[in-house]
C-alpha cells in the first residue's frame, strides 16, 4: 500500500480511538475546555488530512462533526447526550470508511448524507445557520480580515484552519485582545530593540497568522507555486510556522532542518528564494509588524537560504516519499515542545526482529555449549561478551514489544458509555494500573476477551438503576478494572458491584441444557454452579440484547485466555457482584525450559511450572511407593502423586514400569495452579532458553504439548504442558467420554477438590481420609507389633508409635505385613492400621451424612462409592489421651485451657475436622457455618478469645468478615486467624490488610495451633 495512505490510516485510527475516549470524558464534564480542544484538534486534523489525500467521503463526515464540535467550543451549543451520540456515530462511520480504505485502498462507496444531515441539524440547532455553508466555524475576525483580500474568495471546506490557528485561538479568545496583541509589538519594538526578534514580531500568534498567509500566497504566485504544489496547504503552513518559530528564536539548526523540507521539487533557485522572501515580507507587513522588525526577520531567512537551495538540488526522484517524510517532520515542528523521541515502526518489522533475536539467542546457546566442551579458552572471552550483548539485545527487543495494558482498554470507556445509553443504566468504569506493561502479542490476544467480559459485566452484571436502589446500592454501578504484576505474570481483575451470577437461574439452565443431572446439580456448591458460565454455549441473559447473550460467551473467553497460557477464575456473590481474575504470562516468546528425556526423545518442560527435581532410586532416601496402582513419592512428610512420562506418552504400560529393574528415576515436581504432582522422567538435562513456537494445527488436539521449539543443536523438541499432563493423568483409566466432559468442569474447580486416600478397614464400606493429612504410608511387620499397657505399639523411627485400628471390628493381621497410615501431630506420631489401601482419588469433598459414630466425620460419595470419612482427630486423641492430658500442664506454649474460640467455616468437613483438634488442645470451641451466624453471635454479645475464620465462603467472605469485625465492632480487639486453602503471598497480604492477625493454610494444623497460642500470648502480654 502507498506509504502515505498507510501512515494516514494508522494515524487516523489512533486519533479516532483517542477521540472516542475523550468524547465520553467530555460528556461527563461538558465544561472541560481542554478535552474539547483536544477533540476538536484531532477531528480537525483528520478532516485536513482527508482533504489532502482526496477522500471526499471521509472529509465530509469529519467536516460535519467538526462543525458541531466547533459550536460546542464556541459555546453556541450545549454538549448533550444526543449530540455526542451522533458524533460518536460519525466516528464509527469514519472507522468503517477507514476499514474499507485499508482493504481496497479506495474509499468505499456509500451515502453519508443522512448522518451529515443529522450532524448539520445539530449544528443548526445551535443557531448561526450559515455555519453549514461556511464551514469555518472558528470565523474569528483575524481570519476574516486577512484572508479575504489575499485570496479574494471565501475558503473551501477543509482548506484552511491549521492547528496553530486553533492554538492561537485558544490562547487569545477575543478579537479585541487579538487586535491589542497585534498593535502591541509596534510600541514595544520602538522602545526596546534588544528584545528577541520573536517577541518583537508579536509572538507565536502573529507568526501563525503570517505562516498562514505565506502559504496561501505561495499558491497564488505564479512563478513559485509549482515548487509547493505537491504539498497540501495545511502542511505548508505548518512547515513555515516551524521554520519561522525556530528562526526567530535563533535556533538555526532546527531552522535548517525544517528549511530543507520546505521545497520538495527540484530546481528551486536563488531567484525563487528571493520571490519567497518578498512574499514573506508582504505577509508580515499585512500583519502590521513594524518595518525594521520585518527587515530583520527577512534577513534571518538568509540563514537558511543555502539549506533550502541545496535540499532542492539534492532531492531524489522519489518526490512523493520525500514529501510525506517532510510532512512527518514538519508535523513535529509545531509541537516542538513535545520531544520527538519516538518513531513509528511496522509491527511486522518488530516481529521479525524478535524472531531474529530468538534465533540469535539459540545460536549463542549452541556456541556456549560447544565452548564448554573445549579446552581452548581463547574463544571464551569474546563469547562471554557476545553472550552479554545478546542478552541485552534480547531484553531490549522484548521491551519494544511491551505495551501498557491501557491500550487494550482504550475502547472500553466508549463501550460502557454506549451501553449506559442503550441499556439505560448508570455505570462508572474505574480503570487502575493502565500503565502495567505486557507483551504486544499477549495484549492483542486478550483484547477481545477483555472487552467481552467488561461488556458482560455491564450488561448482565450491573442492574437497572431502579433495581439497584431497591437493593440498597448506589444508583450508579461500578466496574473496576485492575491490572498489576505478580511474579512473571500479569493479574487482571474485572470487578463489578452488580447482581452477581444467579445460582438458581443457572441451575435451571444447566438442567435444561443437560449439562448435568438433577442430583449432580444438587451436590454442587454455588461457586461450582456459577462456574458453568465457562461452559460452551451458555448465556444467562433472559433477553438477548444487542450487547451480549449470543451464546458465544465465557467459554470462548476462557479458551482464549488458556490459549496464551493464562488462567481465569471467578468469584461471584449474588447481590454483591462478580470478580473475574485473569492471570496471564508476561510474554510468550522466550521461556526457560527444563530439558528432560523419556524413551530416547527429549522434551522441554516450562521452568515456570517446575518446583524442584528429586532423584529416586534404590539407594536414595526418596523411594517411589505405590498405593494400589497409584505411584506416590514421600516428599518432606507429604505424599506427592506421580505420573510416569513414559506412560503418559504411551511408551510404557504401568506393567512395563513395574517390571524395570533397579529403576533410577528423576522426578520433576510440577505445579499446576494449587495442585502439585511429580512427573517421572528417564533423565534430566539442563535448563535452556527456548523460543516457543506454536504446534501445527493438526497437533492442537494434543493438550499435553504447549508448543515446540528448536534447540541449540538444531533438533526440534516438543514442549510439554504440565496442565495437559495433569489432566491426562487424571483421566487415565476412567470412562473416557464422561471423564473428558467432567474434566472441563474439574479444571476450573481443581482447587476445591481434595485428594482422598481410600482404604478398607473392617466393615463393608470403604473409608477415606484426606491425603494431605497422611504423613506417610508404612507396612509394618506384624512381628514387630508389641503390646504395652494394653495398647498396640510399634517401634518406629527410634520411638514408640501407638497403633490404632481404623475400625473396632478389625484385628491385626495374623502374619506378614500390616498396612499402616502414619499421622503426625506435632511431635506425636500415630499409626492407623487398615486392611488395605485402595486408591487415591481427586474428589470434591461433600459430606452427606453426619455421623454419630465416633471416629467418623460422615459419609461422602468418593469415586462413585459411599465412603466413610474418618476423623483423624478422634484417633489421635484415642492414641494420646493420656499424654495429651498431661501435656496441657507441661506444654508452656499452650494457653489453651478454658480459652474460647469461634470457628467460622462453611465446610462441614473442616468444622468437624477442626473442632475435635481444637478441643483436644483444651480450647472450648463454638462452631458456626457462616459469617452471618457469627455476626448474629456478635450482636447477641457473646465474646470469644480468638476467632478462626475460613476465607472462601458463600455470601460473605472471610475478608469482608474481618473488615466488618475490625471496623469498630465489639469484637474489634479479638485476634483473628484466617484459615484458607489459598495461601499465596497475595492472599496473606490481603488477609492482613483486612484485619487478620495471622493467615494459616488449611490442613496445616501445627501452624494453626502454634498461631493460636501465639495470638493468645500476644493478647495476654498486651493485657
Amino acid at each position, binding site marked *: 500500500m502507498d506509504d502515505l495512505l498507510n501512515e494516514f490510516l494508522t494515524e487516523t485510527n489512533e486519533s479516532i480511538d483517542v477521540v472516542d475516549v475523550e468524547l465520553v470524558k467530555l460528556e461527563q464534564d461538558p465544561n472541560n475546555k481542554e478535552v474539547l480542544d483536544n477533540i476538536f484538534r484531532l477531528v480537525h486534523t483528520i478532516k485536513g488530512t482527508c482533504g489532502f489525500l482526496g477522500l471526499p467521503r471521509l472529509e465530509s463526515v469529519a467536516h460535519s462533526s467538526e462543525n458541531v464540535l466547533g459550536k460546542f467550543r464556541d459555546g453556541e451549543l450545549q454538549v448533550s447526550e444526543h449530540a455526542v451520540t451522533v458524533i460518536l456515530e460519525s466516528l464509527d462511520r469514519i472507522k468503517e470508511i477507514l476499514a474499507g480504505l485499508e482493504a481496497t485502498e479506495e474509499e468505499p462507496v456509500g451515502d453519508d448524507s443522512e448522518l451529515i444531515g443529522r450532524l448539520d441539524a445539530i449544528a443548526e440547532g445551535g443557531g448561526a445557520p450559515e455555519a453549514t455553508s461556511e464551514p469555518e466555524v472558528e470565523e474569528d475576525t483575524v481570519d476574516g480580515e486577512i484572508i479575504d483580500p489575499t485570496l479574494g474568495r471565501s475558503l473551501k471546506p477543509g482548506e484552511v484552519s491549521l492547528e496553530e490557528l486553533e492554538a492561537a485561538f485558544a490562547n487569545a479568545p477575543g478579537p479585541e485582545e487579538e487586535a491589542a496583541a497585534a498593535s502591541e509589538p509596534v510600541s514595544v519594538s520602538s522602545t526596546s530593540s534588544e528584545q528577541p526578534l520573536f517577541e518583537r514580531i508579536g509572538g507565536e500568534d502573529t507568526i501563525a497568522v503570517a505562516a498562514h498567509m505565506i502559504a496561501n500566497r505561495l499558491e497564488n504566485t505564479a512563478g513559485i507555486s509549482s515548487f509547493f504544489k505537491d504539498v497540501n496547504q495545511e502542511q505548508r503552513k505548518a512547515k513555515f510556522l516551524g521554520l519561522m518559530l525556530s528562526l526567530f528564536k535563533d535556533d538555526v539548526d532546527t531552522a535548517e532542518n525544517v528549511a530543507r523540507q520546505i521545497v520538495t521539487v527540484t530546481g528551486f533557485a536563488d531567484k525563487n528564494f528571493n520571490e519567497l522572501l518578498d512574499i514573506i515580507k508582504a505577509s508580515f507587513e499585512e500583519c502590521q509588524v513594524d518595518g525594521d522588525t520585518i527587515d530583520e526577520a527577512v534577513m534571518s531567512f538568509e540563514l537558511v537560504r543555502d539549506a533550502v537551495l541545496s535540499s532542492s538540488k539534492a532531492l531524489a526522484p522519489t518526490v512523493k516519499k520525500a514529501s510525506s517524510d517532510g510532512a512527518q517532520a514538519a508535523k513535529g515542528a509545531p509541537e516542538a515542545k513535545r520531544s520527538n523521541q519516538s518513531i513509528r515502526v511496522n509491527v511486522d518489522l518488530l516481529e521479525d526482529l524478535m524472531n531474529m533475536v530468538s534465533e540469535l539467542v539459540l545460536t549463542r546457546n549452541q556456541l556456549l555449549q560447544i565452548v564448554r566442551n573445549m579446552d581452548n579458552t581463547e574463544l571464551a572471552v569474546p563469547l562471554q561478551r557476545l553472550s552479554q550483548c545478546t542478552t541485552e539485545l534480547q531484553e531490549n527487543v522484548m521491551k519494544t514489544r511491551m505495551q501498557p495494558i491501557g491500550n487494550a482498554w482504550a475502547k472500553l470507556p466508549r463501550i460502557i458509555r454506549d451501553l449506559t445509553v442503550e441499556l439505560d443504566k448508570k455505570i462508572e468504569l474505574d480503570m487502575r494500573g493502565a500503565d502495567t506493561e505486557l507483551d504486544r502479542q499477549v495484549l492483542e490476544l486478550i483484547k477481545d476477551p477483555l472487552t467481552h467480559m467488561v461488556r458482560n459485566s455491564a450488561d448482565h452484571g450491573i442492574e437497572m438503576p431502579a433495581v439497584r436502589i431497591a437493593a440498597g446500592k448506589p444508583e450508579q454501578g461500578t466496574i473496576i478494572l485492575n491490572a498489576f504484576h505478580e511474579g512473571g505474570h500479569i493479574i487482571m481483575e474485572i470487578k463489578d458491584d452488580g447482581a452477581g451470577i444467579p445460582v438458581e437461574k443457572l441451575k435451571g439452565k444447566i438442567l435444561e441444557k443437560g449439562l448435568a443431572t438433577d442430583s449432580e446439580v444438587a451436590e454442587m456448591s454455588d461457586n461450582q454452579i456459577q462456574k458453568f458460565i465457562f461452559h460452551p454455549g451458555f448465556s444467562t441473559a433472559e433477553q438477548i440484547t444487542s450487547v451480549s447473550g449470543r451464546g458465544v460467551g465465557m467459554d470462548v473467553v476462557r479458551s482464549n485466555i488458556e490459549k496464551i497460557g493464562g488462567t481465569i477464575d471467578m468469584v461471584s456473590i449474588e447481590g454483591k457482584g462478580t470478580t473475574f481474575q485473569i492471570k496471564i504470562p508476561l510474554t510468550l516468546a522466550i521461556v526457560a525450559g527444563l530439558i528432560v528425556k523419556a524413551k530416547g*526423545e527429549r522434551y522441554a518442560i516450562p521452568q515456570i511450572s517446575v518446583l524442584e527435581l528429586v532423584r529416586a532410586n534404590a539407594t536414595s532416601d526418596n523411594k517411589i511407593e505405590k498405593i494400589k496402582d497409584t505411584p506416590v513419592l514421600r516428599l518432606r512428610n507429604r505424599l506427592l502423586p506421580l505420573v510416569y512420562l513414559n506412560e503418559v506418552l504411551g511408551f510404557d504400560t504401568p506393567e512395563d514400569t513395574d517390571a524395570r529393574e533397579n529403576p533410577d528415576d528423576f522426578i520433576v515436581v510440577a505445579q499446576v495452579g494449587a495442585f502439585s504432582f511429580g512427573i517421572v522422567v528417564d533423565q534430566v538435562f539442563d535448563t535452556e532458553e527456548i523460543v516457543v513456537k506454536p504446534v501445527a494445527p*493438526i*497437533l492442537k488436539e*494434543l493438550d499435553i504439548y504447549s508448543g515446540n521449539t*528448536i534447540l541449540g543443536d538444531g533438533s*526440534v523438541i*516438543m514442549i510439554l504442558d504440565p496442565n495437559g499432563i495433569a489432566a491426562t493423568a487424571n483421566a487415565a483409566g476412567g470412562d473416557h467420554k464422561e471423564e473428558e466432559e467432567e474434566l472441563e468442569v474439574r479444571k476450573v474447580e481443581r482447587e476445591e477438590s481434595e485428594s482422598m486416600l481410600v482404604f478398607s478397614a473392617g466393615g463393608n464400606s470403604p473409608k477415606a481420609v484426606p491425603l494431605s493429612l497422611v504423613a506417610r504410608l508404612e507396612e509394618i511387620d506384624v512381628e514387630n507389633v508389641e503390646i504395652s499397657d494394653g495398647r498396640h505399639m510399634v517401634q518406629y523411627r527410634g520411638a514408640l508409635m501407638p497403633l490404632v485400628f481404623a475400625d473396632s471390628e478389625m484385628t491385626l493381621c495374623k502374619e506378614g505385613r500390616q498396612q499402616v497410615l502414619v499421622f503426625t501431630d506435632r511431635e506425636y506420631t500415630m499409626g492407623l492400621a487398615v486392611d488395605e489401601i485402595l486408591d487415591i482419588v481427586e474428589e470434591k469433598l461433600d459430606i452427606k451424612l453426619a455421623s454419630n459414630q465416633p471416629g467418623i466425620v460422615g459419609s461422602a460419595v468418593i469415586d462413585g462409592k459411599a465412603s466413610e470419612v474418618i476423623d483423624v482427630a478422634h484417633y489421635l486423641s484415642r492414641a494420646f489421651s493420656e499424654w495429651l492430658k498431661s501435656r496441657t500442664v507441661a506444654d508452656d506454649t499452650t494457653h489453651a485451657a478454658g480459652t474460647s474460640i469461634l470457628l467460622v467455616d462453611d465446610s462441614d468437613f473442616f468444622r468437624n475436622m477442626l473442632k475435635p483438634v481444637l478441643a483436644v488442645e483444651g480450647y472450648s470451641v463454638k462452631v458456626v457455618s457462616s459469617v452471618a451466624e457469627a455476626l448474629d453471635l456478635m450482636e447477641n454479645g457473646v465474646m470469644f478469645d480468638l476467632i478462626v475464620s475460613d476465607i472462601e465462603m458463600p455470601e460473605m467472605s472471610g475478608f469482608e468478615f474481618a473488615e466488618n469485625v475490625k471496623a469498630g465492632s465489639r469484637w474489634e480487639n479479638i485476634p483473628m486467624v484466617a484459615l484458607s486453602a489459598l495461601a499465596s503471598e497475595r492472599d496473606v497480604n490481603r488477609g492482613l490488610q483486612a484485619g487478620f492477625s495471622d493467615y494459616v493454610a488449611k490442613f496445616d494444623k501445627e501452624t494453626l495451633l502454634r498461631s493460636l497460642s501465639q495470638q493468645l500470648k500476644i493478647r495476654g502480654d498486651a493485657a
Partner: protein
Amino acid sequence: MNDLVVREDLSVVTTGTQDFVTVKLAGQTLGIPVLAVHDVLNAQQITKIPLSADWVSGVLNLRGRIVTAIDLRSRLGLEPLGGEKKSMSVVVEHNDEPYSLQIDEVGEVLSLDDQLFERNPVTLDARWRDVSKGIYRLENELLAILDVEKLLAFETNTKAA
C-alpha cells in the same frame, strides 16, 4: 477436455500444459503441482510426537522453521517403508503452515499437456479418490495428481471424527 483441468492454484499456466514434480510412493507415481512444492529434502532427523495421529511422523527443523512431517504411506493406507531406505521429503504449505510429505523417492519435473488429464476412475480406492485430483496418462504409466489442499485438510477431518 480442457474444462476438466483443475487450475485453481495454477492459473498462471496458460499454455495448456502443467508442471508437476513426480514422486514415487510404494511403486505408484504421484504428481504434485510444481508451484505447490517449496522444498525437496533428503532424509531428515525427525522428532517423533507421541500420541499424535499415526500418519504424523513428527516434526523437523527446516532452516529454523518447524515443519510437520506427514507419513504419506500411512495417510494413504500403505505399508510402512521397509528396509534400510529412508524417506525423502517434499515440503508443501497449507494455510501458511509448512508440511513435509514423506515419500519414497523424488522423480523429475514433468510438463504435461492438459489433454492427457482424466478424472479419477470411479473404482479408485476411496482413500485415494479423496486426495487425487485426477490422472494423467503417461506413456508408460499413470500419474495420479495429489490434491495437497485436501490431503492436508486435517482440521475438518479431525473435527468430524
